[in-house]
């Protein structure tokens, strides 16, 4: 179990690194926005990243 979790973490880090430029853009976008747009963008970024990482195995299958 621990091995699986460790493997997932490594994979998640790799996937996140693959998304580096996208994440940089989204972070910049979030910081450039204000008000509700900033909140929605930030929430969408975090949520999407979480889903992306949680569905690694699902997408590879």
């Amino acid at each position: 179990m621990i091995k699986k979790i460790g493997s997932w973490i490594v994979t998640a880090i790799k996937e996140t690194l693959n998304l580096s430029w996208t994440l940089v853009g989204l972070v910049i976008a979030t910081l450039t926005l204000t008000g509700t747009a900033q909140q929605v963008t930030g929430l969408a970024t975090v949520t999407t990243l979480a889903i992306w990482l949680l569905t690694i195995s699902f997408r590879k299958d």
Partner: protein
Amino acid sequence: MLLRLCLALFLLIPTPVFANEVPGEVTVNEGFEDSTYETGLTVSTGSIYCDEQDRYGTTGCSLGIGSSTLFEFSEDVYEVGFIVGAVNNSYDVKYYYSDGTDETIQKSGQDNSEGPPWANMVDSFYKSFTDYNNDEANTDKFITKFEVNVSDPTVFDTLYWQYIDESTITTTTTTTTIPPAVPDNATSVSVNYNGEGIDFSWEYTNGNVNAHSFHINYSYDNSTWTRVIIDDTSARTFHLKSGYVQTGTFYWSFSVCGDLDNGESCTDSDSNNFETTQYVAPTTTVYVAPPPPPPPPPPTPQEIIVDVVVEGVDKTYTQADVNDGTIERDQERIDNESEFGCFMTNAQIERGDCFIIIEEVEVFEDDIIEEEIIITEKEVIVEEIKENVDVIILEDDVDVLDPPKEEVFEDAVVEFEELPIEFEIIEFDLEDIAPEIVVEIPIQDEIEEEIIDEEIEVEVQEVLDEPIQEVVSEDTPGTTLPRVEDKEPIELTEEEVAVEVAEIDEVIVIELEIASEEEIEEFTEEELVEYEEAKEEAIQEYVQDLTNEEASEVLEEVNDIGVQNLDQATEEIQEVVQAVVEEAIADVAELTEEQVEVVAEVLQVEAEDVAIIAESVKDDEVIAEAVEEYVERAVENTDVENYTLADVVTEISYESFIDNPIETFVDFNNLGDITVANIGDDMTQDQKEKAQEVVVPVILTRIASMAAFMFRRS
């Protein structure tokens, strides 16, 4: 016999004795018709009795008494009278006087046998103790009160009393006019006529009043007099020259006069007349004053150099105008009004103070290459705009759709350099100047003919009528087109900046205790904090006291120079401007539309965004901090082009993200209130465009890289 009869008649006929009229005499009658007594009378007992009116010698009602009753006066009464009736038993009346004495009059009971109305059952009383009624027996006593002592029911009526009202006595003041002081008469006044002149001589010695002058009056008709005034009081002779002597009767009088200026008068010491036998015509020498020298010529004005008709108005220029360049600037204004419709100098035009119409604009070039990749609709829109738009109006010298700005502007400069008018310089000598000389140079019509193309104006007007800007802003969302409202940064020379800063200094009148740098360096941390707090407090008080108009005036001056150019101003001025901006945002609801526009210009946003900012400040710490630090950061970023409030917001967001990355992404407020429709409504237009400039390229880059990756794999 007749005399005796007249004497007998005189003695038989009674002659009334008339008392002298007493000045200020007041007679008060009290008839006891009601319970309110006349002023000045106090009655100790009794009540108004109306059951037996007009009986016992009374008139109407009366005062019913049955025991000792005191009547007291407040005035110095010298005469009193009354009646007492229906008294069956003996009684008395006691008078009290002002000298402390009194007098009692005893009376026996009245006879009631006559029956109703008992008209004779009454006693009359009268007492007077002054000189006013001419009674020799009177003294200067006053009656202070009197007392009626009865033991059975009695009526009291018809009371009167008299006294003197000093306030009504007219005081007659006799003013004795003192006759003016007169000096003593002169004596031994003699007049000798020897056929030519007339010699006067006299003797005089000062008495109580000193002589100030001697007057010799003479006349030839005894009505029109000529007066000779001899101020030398030591003189005792006078010679009237023969030139003033005419044939006829010579009337003369001699007077000694005192100080007439101080009310003293003259004597008539002597007067007489005699006949003159020889007339010597007076030799009259008329003094003809030389004509006054001509007034000095007025200082030579340095005019008229040029007289020009500007817009139909005759305008005269002086040498000073030529020296300081006024003529050149006016010429620039004339040219620019014809060229651009703005009566402004070239410097003002270059600064962007004028709405300039520029013909032909190329639409959508390099700036939208990336969008063409993904949004094909834009091409359609662009084509539509190209078809419909021949001329686009630029506001504040800003290009729309990437126009060939420099080329157009160079053309304009060429127009400026070719001055269509050559001023005719006319120099005058002062003596040759004639006011009516005016050289009129009709300028306006020629310029209009040369420069203005009416057809272009018509086309421009047609284009103006079309909602071009709305098409750009509404139908092409997401484009990276520069905004119509974008402004060129204010480019001022150092001298102009200094002038504008001085104007701001003049507008901002605040007293601050400013410490020198050396003093600040010597401050301890606590002292520095106190110093900063005191300064901030003083600024806040100053800003709080500013009216909206005054605050707007400050911001207008800031707009003249541009916020980023405030680095030339002192730190205190910057802080005041910052405080004014904050105050304006806080009180935006109270500002007029014009004042909001001024605030918007300071923040480099649109007018409608000011309200959004004001609302966001309340619940968005980042924007609140951005407003607080806007001026400071704008000054720090002087070299950054188009530095606006959105840039400050972004900077502060990044700083906040660096400090606490998680919070930036997890700081959700009122997430439930967010709907798809209102997302972004609380962003200023400027902020949206800044975000577009960042987000869109990032997304496009990511898509492009993914496409390339997929292409390589396939």
